């Protein structure tokens, strides 16, 4: 077995207990609500009969491990239970919501990488002005809260200029152009902070690589500076950049909750927030489970990608 394949398999094996612990944690959320969760869900006017009925419906009276087994078996078959208020099956609801969140986070990450990596490289190899400007951008991106930035963007692009809709959503299948139109501001809102982190890491990693002897050798050999920077140095600086992109993906999933609420996008994040406000625990659980699973899978993918970019990472696992 090649060391790389072994590394990937090891990392995969490590993911399974993490998924298990996460699912137990999310399963327990509703059981940890102080007092009777069903009473909290139904409100004060609920009759004992109502409460008993809902308890039975949610299987809250079964032994805990039976409850977990039934729940997780359902989830693995795509059955997430029922929306407590609308009685709609949660599987279908999630199938509508997940693509929205995925589109938002993927587009934001693409934009952040497309802007962040070249800016970070310029900050490392460029002149004083390139350095100052990018440093300013990093400080701005990290300090400004994303949702406030989003509101300011709405104020300018929707309020003053009337170029873009302030909130709302059209599905991509219905009208691709309209979908992108509505996505511009949310994506921009999320991308700025991500880009700032990517710039900072790219700059640091590139500075480290540009000081190494092989760069001096390439210069002495007469390799063009452009090729030194983008073909040789950037390739060697890629592992930390890939790591930070992976970490920021997780942050994006959290940020999506706020941005979806801000722009009224029907994604998983907004589902969770409305679920909490309505004490709709099955919805909250299903939403959290989906986002947490994405988070864990992304960190798995990141580790594997970094292992491939920088073989030292995957080799280290052997010794």
């Amino acid at each position, binding site marked *: 077995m090649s060391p790389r394949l072994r590394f990937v398999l090891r990392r995969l094996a490590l993911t399974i207990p*993490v998924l298990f*612990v*996460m699912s137990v*944690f*999310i399963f327990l*959320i509703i059981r*940890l*609500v*102080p007092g009777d969760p069903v009473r909290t869900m139904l409100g004060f006017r609920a009759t004992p009969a109502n409460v008993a009925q809902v308890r039975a419906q949610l299987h809250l009276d079964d032994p805990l491990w039976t409850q977990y087994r039934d729940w997780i078996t359902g989830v693995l078959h795509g059955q997430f239970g029922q929306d407590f208020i609308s009685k709609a099956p949660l599987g279908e609801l999630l199938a509508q919501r997940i693509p929205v969140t995925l589109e938002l986070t993927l587009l934001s990450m693409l934009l952040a990488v497309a802007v962040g990596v070249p800016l970070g490289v310029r900050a490392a190899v460029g002149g004083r002005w390139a350095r100052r400007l990018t440093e300013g951008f990093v*400080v701005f991106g*990290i*300090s*400004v*809260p994303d*949702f*406030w930035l989003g*509101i*300011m963007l*709405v*104020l300018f692009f929707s*309020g003053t200029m009337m170029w873009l809709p302030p909130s709302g959503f059209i599905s991509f299948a219905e009208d691709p152009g309209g979908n992108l139109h509505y996505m511009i501001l949310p994506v921009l809102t999320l991308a700025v902070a991500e880009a700032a982190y990517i710039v900072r890491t790219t700059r640091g990693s590139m500075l480290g690589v540009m000081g190494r002897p092989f760069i001096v050798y390439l210069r002495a050999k007469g390799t063009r500076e452009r090729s030194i920077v983008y073909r040789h140095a950037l390739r060697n600086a890629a592992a930390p950049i890939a790591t930070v992109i992976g970490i920021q993906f*997780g*942050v994006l*999933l*959290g*940020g999506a*909750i*706020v941005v979806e*609420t*801000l722009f009224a996008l029907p994604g998983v994040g907004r589902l*969770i*927030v409305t*679920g*909490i*406000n309505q004490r709709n*625990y099955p919805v*909250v659980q299903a939403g*959290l489970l989906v*986002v*947490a699973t994405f*988070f*864990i899978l992304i960190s798995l993918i990141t580790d594997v990608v970094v292992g491939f970019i920088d073989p030292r990472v995957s080799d280290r696992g052997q010794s």
Partner: protein
Amino acid sequence: MTMTMASGARRSRSAVAALPRSARIGALILVVLVVVAVLAPLLAPHDPNAIDSSRVLGAPDLGHPFGSDALGRDVLSRTIYAFRTSLAIVFGAVAVASLIALPLGTLAGYFGGWVDQVISRPLDMLLVLPALLLAISLIAIVGPGSLVAALAIALIYLPILARVQRASSLVVSQSGFVEGGRARGWSSAAVLRRHVIPNALGPLLVQAAILAGFAVQIEAALSFLGLGTQPPTASLGLMLSEGRDVLTQAPWVEIFPGLAIAVIVLAFNLLGDGLRRHLDPQGVVS
């Protein structure tokens, strides 16, 4: 006695002077903010919750430099009081997380082996959810409120701070003077107290300063979603959520609390980055 005190004072003064300019600016801004928060009742020109129907969405003027909101409340006074709420939540959360992380991380790093496993594995489990989601899960269980928001932030930061303290205590534990302490027959407790903790504390402080900045953002985000501080208490996130409804008529209701958050985060970041160079030579803090 007097001499040691005097030299101590001189040392700390020169230590402040030796910090990079950015860290000193960050520290200065923070001192000003803390003073503003503490003296809020004296500094706020108006009662933050006084409703004035004659000044609904009033534009900024001399008496109300930040304007007034949808209920005619003075935005400057509310921002000053919101500083208080936010800083209290943030300092409380980071202090609680640091005080728990300090012993846990120190023991895990110093003893290693099964002690490390028993301490670190459960803490790692807290990292399986994205930060904001972990906070939201806790709020889903307990219900919204400022105290819950503070606890949620502490819960997010505990594993991060413990990990930093563990790494830094591990590095220090391998150094010669710790070995020397053991060779002199000191107990583990004495070695930890006299050698390990004082020398391993720097990175934890740096990480805590950086995290405190983000805690302001998390607190604001939670309150913005209606999951943190509840009305009518003035909180920066809550003010942003109220200002959003009147954005086009009265942008000042929205602009100033947002700028306030940015200033706090910036100050903590400047301080943390400046301290990093001095207190974290091994680069333990991520």
